[in-house]
């Protein structure tokens, strides 16, 4: 596992961590820092302003701390005790306030102008987005729905968002329960998911890659494990992915067909898979599950081992999550796994 040191990263030499990560992290190309952006023009504008304010802040802190330190060192009394140093009023000193506050005000005004300009610039996308994605928060996972003029192209997935590179994409966000916040730092800013309210924002990916996001508003017990992956793809790859998502998986394998029946029986009340009778709405849609990179809302890498462990005891990794432990027998579990394994 490769790690970057903090000072190195602060110097802007932040290295990409390609598919690293320990047992509990799902795969993402970049960590969640937003001091380096992959978010197109919007990301650049936010990041530039953040850096600008950060550098300004550091300069202000260094100057004022130096003023305090140098002032104390130069002016310190040698008397040793307060009552031995005579009291005197040498000069009013108010020019310090006028000059200091004067300079601060000018700098602050400049920062305000930059801030106002950036607010206006990122408020709406440069052109009307072709694609709208609906994101709906649940305790503790993400429902994702791709909208289209063509009804037959609308579909649902979960916990992994794919979007084309180089164009603005509209996100309509809402929640099924409590307040959450949708945030993929390397691509752009966050937006809260609030009951009875549909918030709209837009994001643009500037470069292909897998970016990690996470719920940013405290939403209860498993807030810590409400991650999401955003996969930015070249437009052609994205189109292919969408087409693939619309195609139901079919298999002539008897074991798979048996597994499908077990799945519908045990899992179908909460989960759905397109093209089967499993149509539950309480849990994440599992169509093409094995084409996703993570399990449990970017909590575990999506391997068949982790999948088995998850189904057998979903409470171990993510205690308190709303998926019950089903007490499946060994053969039932194996059968369901065989069915899910082909949902690529």
């Amino acid at each position: 596992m490769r790690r970057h040191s903090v000072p190195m990263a602060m110097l802007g030499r932040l290295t990409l961590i390609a598919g690293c990560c320990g047992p509990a992290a799902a795969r993402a190309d970049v960590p969640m820092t937003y001091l380096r952006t992959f978010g197109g023009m919007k990301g650049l504008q936010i990041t530039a302003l953040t850096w600008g304010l950060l550098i300004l802040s550091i300069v202000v802190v260094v100057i004022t701390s130096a003023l305090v330190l140098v002032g104390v060192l130069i002016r310190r009394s040698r008397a040793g005790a307060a009552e031995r140093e005579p009291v005197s009023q040498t000069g009013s000193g108010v020019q310090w306030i006028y000059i200091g506050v004067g300079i601060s005000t000018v700098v602050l005004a400049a920062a305000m102008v930059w801030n106002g300009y950036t607010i206006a610039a990122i408020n709406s996308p440069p052109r009307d987005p072709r694609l709208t994605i609906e994101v709906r928060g649940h305790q503790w996972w993400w429902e994702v729905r791709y909208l289209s003029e063509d009804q037959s192209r609308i579909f649902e997935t979960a916990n992994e968002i794919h979007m084309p590179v180089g164009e603005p994409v509209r996100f309509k966000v809402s929640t099924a329960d409590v307040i959450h916040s949708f945030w993929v730092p390397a691509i752009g800013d966050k937006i809260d998911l609030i009951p009875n309210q549909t918030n709209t924002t837009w994001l643009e990916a500037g470069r292909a890659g897998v970016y990690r996001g996470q719920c940013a508003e405290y939403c209860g017990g498993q807030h810590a494990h409400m991650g999401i992956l955003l996969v930015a793809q070249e437009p052609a790859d994205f189109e292919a992915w969408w087409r693939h998502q619309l195609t139901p998986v079919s298999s002539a394998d008897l074991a798979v067909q048996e597994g499908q029946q077990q799945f519908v029986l045990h899992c179908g009340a909460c989960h759905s898979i397109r093209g089967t009778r499993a149509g539950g709405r309480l849990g994440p849609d599992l169509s093409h599950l094995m084409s996703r990179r993570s399990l449990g809302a970017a909590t575990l890498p999506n391997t068949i081992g982790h999948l088995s462990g998850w189904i057998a005891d979903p409470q171990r990794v993510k205690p308190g999550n709303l998926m019950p432990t089903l007490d499946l027998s060994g053969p039932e579990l194996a059968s369901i796994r065989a069915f899910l394994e082909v949902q690529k």
Partner: protein
Amino acid sequence: MTVGTYDRVPALETGGHAAPAASQLTRLWESKPGISGWLSTVDHKELGKRYLATAFIFLALGGIEALMMRLQLAQPNQHLLTPEQYNQLFSMHGITMIFLYAQPILSGFSVYLFPLILGTRDMAFPRMNAFSYWVYLAAGLFMYASFLVGAAPNDGWFNYVPFALKPYNPGPNMDFYALGMILLGISTTAGAANFLVTMLRTRAAGMSINRLPILTWGTTTTSVGILFSMPAVSLAFFMLWLDRQFGTHFFDSTARGQPLLWQHLFWMFAHPWVYIIVLPAMGIVSDALPIFCRRPLVGYTVVVLATIATMVMGFGVWLHHMFATGLPFLALSFFSGASFVITIPSAVAVFAWIATIWTGRPVITTAFLFFAGFISMFVIGGVSGVMTASVPADRQLTDTYFVVAHIHYVLIGINLFPVMGGLYVWFPKMTGRMLNERLGRWNFWMVFIGFNLAFLPMHWTGLAGMPRRIYTYPDGMGWGTVNMVTTVGSFVLALGVLLLLINVAISRRHGAVAGPNPWDGPTLEWTTPSPPPPYNFATMPAVASRHPLWEDRLEEGMGKSSLQRGMVLANGKEMLAVTPLDGLPDAILKMPEDSYSPLVATILMTAGFTGLLLHWWWFAGACVFLLLACLVVWLWPERTLGQIAGARHV
């Protein structure tokens, strides 16, 4: 207000604390010895010390909660705490530090110091002062009782709905918080009204408002802020409780209630609250830093105006806590701009302190170190605040550890540092003994290093994208090392705070004996013996300048303050009332004796709230009835208070 003809000409005596009337005054003002005196006292000095001690106990509890969380977060994927335990701990940590430590500790300083620095004998409403303290203690115990049933609040101090509503939070956790906050609000409101009237009416003769110490300006300003902001949060918590218990729909989104209404009501209160818990602390620095710089504060008038401006503007920035909630562009721009502008009055104070150091001769004591360190911490907390004032930057920064770092620079840097420094300054006044300076240096450096080790890197944790309020985090995110550093720093900080407690424990018995004025300070509290007698001043002082004890050296003001000769006012418990602006003598006030009423009222009120918590409606109703009876007893007109006709010349 004009001064009319006096009904009585009070006797004048010379000799200050050696005045002949001193023994008579002691008899009048002293609380009874033993437990009965302890429970019924209305002496502001006793109550102030209790406020300080109680707030420090809550600081210790909140600190222990923080250390448990820091152990959990020291490494990725740890399992020392369950998610529910962690969520209760971070919620109670915030509630404790913000509501049960940060504001009450400043009330403690102000309750202790107000009458002494204003040159009077007690707060304007001594029994209400006792009531404020008891209710604060009761509200703290009420909220902490939730741990006993394993159901502490678990939705953070901000307590967002709908997670705080019954469908997601069926236990009593949120009821403890909602009712506890309403109870605490009663204490805070009563305290604020008391400070306000005390500052306006019970000062030394001649103490016009341009001669008030800055601490009194800070506390008075925030008292007005409390009176305007507290109703919002008390109402919000009451509505939350109604939603939870009686199925009203203020916030319930399933019945078209408004979850964002909660956020507005909460932050309308909670953003001013941030200024409420720092402005008096800034006042402590503005008053005490000059003592060690051996000169008056630079720019008294602008600092006072900046204090008031900060509080006023503090009511116009609450939306910056809600930049990511999808509010309209124009509203965001306005609140973003206001949040930038509020920095300017803070800059005034910073440059005033720096100028005081540069134009003075700083004497390095532990207290001075805390104040000098505070200036830098203040600036760090300030500039990170400016970053969150920017909508685009804040939508990245908000709900990350960057904001956690920011709030700790505000709360520890701007509150705890001045509080610790202030304790070194006024501990001799409270106990008659000095805190140990050698231990004090260790105390300061451990706190300073530990604090910065814990929280300076935490800005980076946030910039590296770590969200707040997560009980654990995965490996490989670049958060592990920096979290470990924070955990180490937090333990160093805790040891530093422990050193202060050890210093207090040792020095109150074995410290060097302090005279009336160990630091050669300029204001009236330093004319009294240490500790002050129950009546504070035997002869009422009259002041002619802002720095009565320095005026001969500064050639300040017109005429001379009279600190040794003044009115005795010993026909019962008496104080002088002055006109609000000019401080001209206006009336003689009859002050109440010690009383059990505040304590009994507190017990009945707390019992009533407990009834509401447990749904014992009849019990709660009975408590209300008894409380009304208690208030009748409390407020029954008394001859000694001049509340009965014909009793004016007792």
